[in-house]
């Protein structure tokens, strides 16, 4: 359904997306996971024909994004990260406008619009102005809008960014429902591990414009081969040095006041860690053992945590991106 080869995008001297290669199967939910600024949205914008690739190709639904942008646009639906509905119009008017722009036959519009409104449970509010909607309702309407023209592929850019937990769960259930019932191919970007884990069949982890891992979430986690032991201590560096004496401990990551150790058979290692610490006079505040999450996968490959940037940085990013669309 989607075939990406060496896809690259440069902004001046900055390479935002660096030689991406991946394919997405029909009906699959594919996730692009990575921190803000990793190049997820840029990748998505190239697939949606908003930005031109500097290099490389992308085929969406059989059409090249550079050579046949309008066929690509007809095949896809997009739910943008930032609001993109007209708030002076009603929900229904927004959907009608979209249906017209995408050439949905008049005779079918009414039926389809009611259908998508029902899907996102906005039937009662369809005839109110968007400016009276809450953030979650707007996002739901945008999802509905992305579906009115029955796209083959739906792109979702950070679908739950800035929403409260309850609304987030809500949106997740719509997405899961859609992929099951409509067999629609979906590509979503996110920096929420939980979201990627829950919704995606496969995930590409992106950092600095490159794919650093690509697999099913389960296999990505299994790929770490072991349990995660977190150790909170004041002497991170010292303990890390000492722990290297234990032969089976290879993968040790230092965080601010915490050590993360990935190891097979963690239960039997814990006593030895404690032993080493006690012998070297290091005080351990707490310790825990658990199964790996995608966060650990990311940490494993990059040595960093995925952390949402501060809101200032985030808004600067949004402003920059907005300016790039003219």
């Amino acid at each position, binding site marked *: 359904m989607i075939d990406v080869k060496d896809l690259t995008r440069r902004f001046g001297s900055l390479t935002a997306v660096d030689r991406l290669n991946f394919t997405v199967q029909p009906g699959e939910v594919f996730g692009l996971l990575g921190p803000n600024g990793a190049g997820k949205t840029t990748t998505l914008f190239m697939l*949606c*024909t*908003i*930005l*031109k690739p500097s290099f490389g190709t992308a085929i969406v639904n059989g059409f090249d994004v550079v050579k046949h942008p*309008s*066929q690509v*646009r*007809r095949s896809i639906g*997009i739910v*943008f990260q*930032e*609001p*993109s*509905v*007209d*708030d*002076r*119009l009603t929900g229904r*008017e927004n959907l009608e*406008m*979209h249906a*017209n*722009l*995408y*050439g949905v036959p008049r005779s079918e519009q009414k039926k389809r619009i009611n259908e998508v409104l029902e899907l996102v449970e906005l039937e009662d509010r369809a005839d109110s102005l968007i400016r009276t909607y809450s953030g979650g309702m707007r996002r739901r309407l945008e999802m509905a*809008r992305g579906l009115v023209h029955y796209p083959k592929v739906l792109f979702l850019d950070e679908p739950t960014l800035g929403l409260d937990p309850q609304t987030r769960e809500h949106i997740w259930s719509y997405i899961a429902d859609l992929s099951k019932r409509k067999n629609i191919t979906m590509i979503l970007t996110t920096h929420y591990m939980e979201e990627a884990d829950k919704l995606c069949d496969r995930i590409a982890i992106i950092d600095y414009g490159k794919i650093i891992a690509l697999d099913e979430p389960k296999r990505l986690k299994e790929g770490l081969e072991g349990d995660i032991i977190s150790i909170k201590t004041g002497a991170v560096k010292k303990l890390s040095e000492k722990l290297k004496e234990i032969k089976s401990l290879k993968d040790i990551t230092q965080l601010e006041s915490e050590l993360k150790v990935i190891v097979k058979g963690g239960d039997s290692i814990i006593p030895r860690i404690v032993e080493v610490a006690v012998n070297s006079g290091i005080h351990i505040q707490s310790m825990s053992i658990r199964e790996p999450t995608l966060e650990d996968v990311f940490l494993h490959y990059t040595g960093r945590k995925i952390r949402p940037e501060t809101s200032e940085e985030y808004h600067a990013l949004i402003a920059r991106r*907005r*300016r*790039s*669309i*003219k």
Partner: protein
Amino acid sequence: MSEILGIYTLWLREVKRYMREKTRLVSSFFQPLIWLVIFGSGMRFSTGIGVINYQQFIFPGVVGQTLLFTSMFMGISVIWDREFGFLKEILVAPISRVSIFVGKMLGDSTDAVIQGSFVLLYSFVVGIDMDIKTFLLSLPLMMLITFGLVSVGLTLASFMESLESFGVIQTFVNLPLFFLSGALFPVDQVPEWLRWVSIIDPLTYGVDALRIVILKGAWTPLFPLHYDLLALFIFDMAMILVGTIVFGRRR
């Protein structure tokens, strides 16, 4: 076909939005009245212009001014669309950039012409005889005047980062075009240099044509009507061309 439907859809959106802006509609009712009644009466008794009085003289000029200011404002409002993200929705739709531009341009022009028509209704205030025929003739003329102006607004907007720069447009585009157009004084009685600058102001032809249509025989035109129309037509075509090129840029 889908392009035409797209243009219609964008046109409809602009008009719907405009009709819902109650505060702007109200202010658009009163602003021309201030020019006609206060400014017009004040000047009327200090200047004399042939057979018609000053208020009647500036009446078509105030129509022109309304068209200019509204067109420019509506054109620039595309910045709002970008700011609120709506522009993205349109830009990824499967219609051409040319259609997007034309749809917006037609919609904004319609809004400006509606606003201009309100002003025409004030003809009784200044004692101009406004019959149905004159009113109907003014409509296509007003359309012709606004196409180019809206295109200028849309083009400028695509180079602007935010609506704050609107003041710059007001100072460097709106006011010069307005004052140079002969809306408030006859440009055949001004110094040579000023007359030459007026000739390159597209609104000069718009106001002249409006005077020919509205004031009829009471007005001695600067140019024959078909000259005015030709000048406006060339201006429109040039600005629409520039606008579509600027809008069509894809990065």
